């Protein structure tokens, strides 16, 4: 074990850590914003409305993230329309491509989580809201969505961890995230064990942090489910 190499390269790892965090947080944010309309449309009763969002969810959950990322990073240059227009300034950047792929992917998974939870909303909640005279948008805003988010929390926690793990793929397309940093350290010094295990430890810490964070959030939002303390 050559610890000195790792210590010398710690700044590189921390830069990678920052990139990973930024990438994960922003793709989760964009993904969540996309997932809400997707989930709402997927639960629509009319088939022609729910078809497209369901197909979207099926595609993004049924194919590997790596393939999705390659489709965007390597694939987009194939189209003249993209190549010749301002779009190329976006799609030639590895970082933007990874961000788009991750956001679309997590939108698919989160959409499915939300769809499932929306469909399991107890009918009584909606009925009560209607009986109180709320309009449809108000029911969504005050009752349906808050109740859905609350019940989707545990599954969403898993999705966040999944996204963190998936974000290591960014290192494959030249981005210096945690995995990319480990790759650089390995290729400069040929210390595969030390370099990748260090990255692994960073990921492990991040995972624990997310698990802990979600436990706290759930503790807060699931307060009504806790047994009473006497």
């Amino acid at each position, binding site marked *: 074990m050559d610890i000195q190499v790792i210590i010398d390269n710690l700044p590189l790892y921390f830069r990678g850590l920052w990139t990973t965090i930024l990438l994960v947080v922003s793709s989760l944010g964009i993904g969540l914003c996309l997932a809400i309309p997707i989930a709402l449309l997927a639960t629509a009763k009319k088939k022609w409305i729910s078809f497209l969002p369901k197909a979207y969810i099926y595609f993004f959950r049924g194919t*590997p993230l790596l393939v999705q990322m390659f489709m965007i990073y390597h694939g987009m240059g194939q189209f003249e329309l993209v190549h010749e227009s301002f779009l190329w300034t976006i799609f030639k950047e590895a970082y933007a491509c990874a961000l788009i792929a991750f956001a679309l992917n997590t939108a698919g998974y989160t959409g499915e989580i939300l769809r499932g939870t929306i469909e399991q909303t107890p009918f009584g909640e909606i009925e009560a809201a209607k009986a109180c005279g709320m309009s449809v948008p108000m029911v969504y805003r005050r009752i349906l969505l808050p109740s859905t988010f609350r019940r989707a929390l545990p599954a969403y926690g898993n999705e966040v961890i999944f996204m963190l793990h998936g974000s290591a793929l960014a290192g494959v397309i030249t981005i210096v995230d945690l995995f990319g940093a480990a790759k650089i350290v390995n290729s400069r010094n040929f210390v595969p064990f030390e370099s990748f295990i260090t990255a692994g430890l960073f990921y492990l810490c991040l995972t624990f942090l997310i698990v802990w964070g979600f436990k706290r959030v759930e503790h807060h939002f699931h307060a009504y489910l806790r047994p009473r303390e006497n």
Partner: protein
Amino acid sequence: MPEVIAYLPLILKGMLLTVEVALLSLIISVFLGMLGAVAKLSNSRIAGGLAGLYTTIIRGIPDLVLMTILFFGGQILVNNIGEKMGWEYIDVSPFMAGVLTIGFIFGAYMTESFRGGILAVSHGEIEAGYAFGMNPVQVFVRITLPAMVRHALPSFGNNWLVLTKTTALISVIGLQDMVYNAGLAGGSTRKPFTFFCVVAFLFLIITGVSDFGLRRINKRYSVGVRKA
């Protein structure tokens, strides 16, 4: 379109490798999962602790990182051991590294599925087994194992679907699976999007077929269950 037909045999050859890796690593993961589940449920503190450490670490580190650790590091490890033992040079092939890592990773997920399945087996059935004078091994093989399948099947199926998608990562360590071959074909025809679409479609086929198969198995194992 003519390019796709020209390169289809290459892609399909890659698909065969993908399926091969997926099935082999499934076998390893089921074996490890069974071992882990039994260890977690056993009374032994050491076995339970080891299994707990295994599942926590595996589920906390990205599969890509684990794969590179095993692929690059495994070679050095084998070299070092080989030097001391005086073996000939052993090459850790990407195929072996891929299968072993994916099997090792999903063993952790299978541990959780199987543990849940075993816990869901009603206690009365196991007790009845003991009452007939079976020893613990007999009870496990004859009663617990067949009865847990139904409970473990949904999450087992889920793991299998995730596993097949994870096999795409082996292209990163240089194995010529369908993602790798699609990259080659896309590079030489300058139509990467088309070929990655083909691969995505093939993955959807694998997922669809497994979904169908899993539903059949589920039906078979739920024969004795009454539905409301």
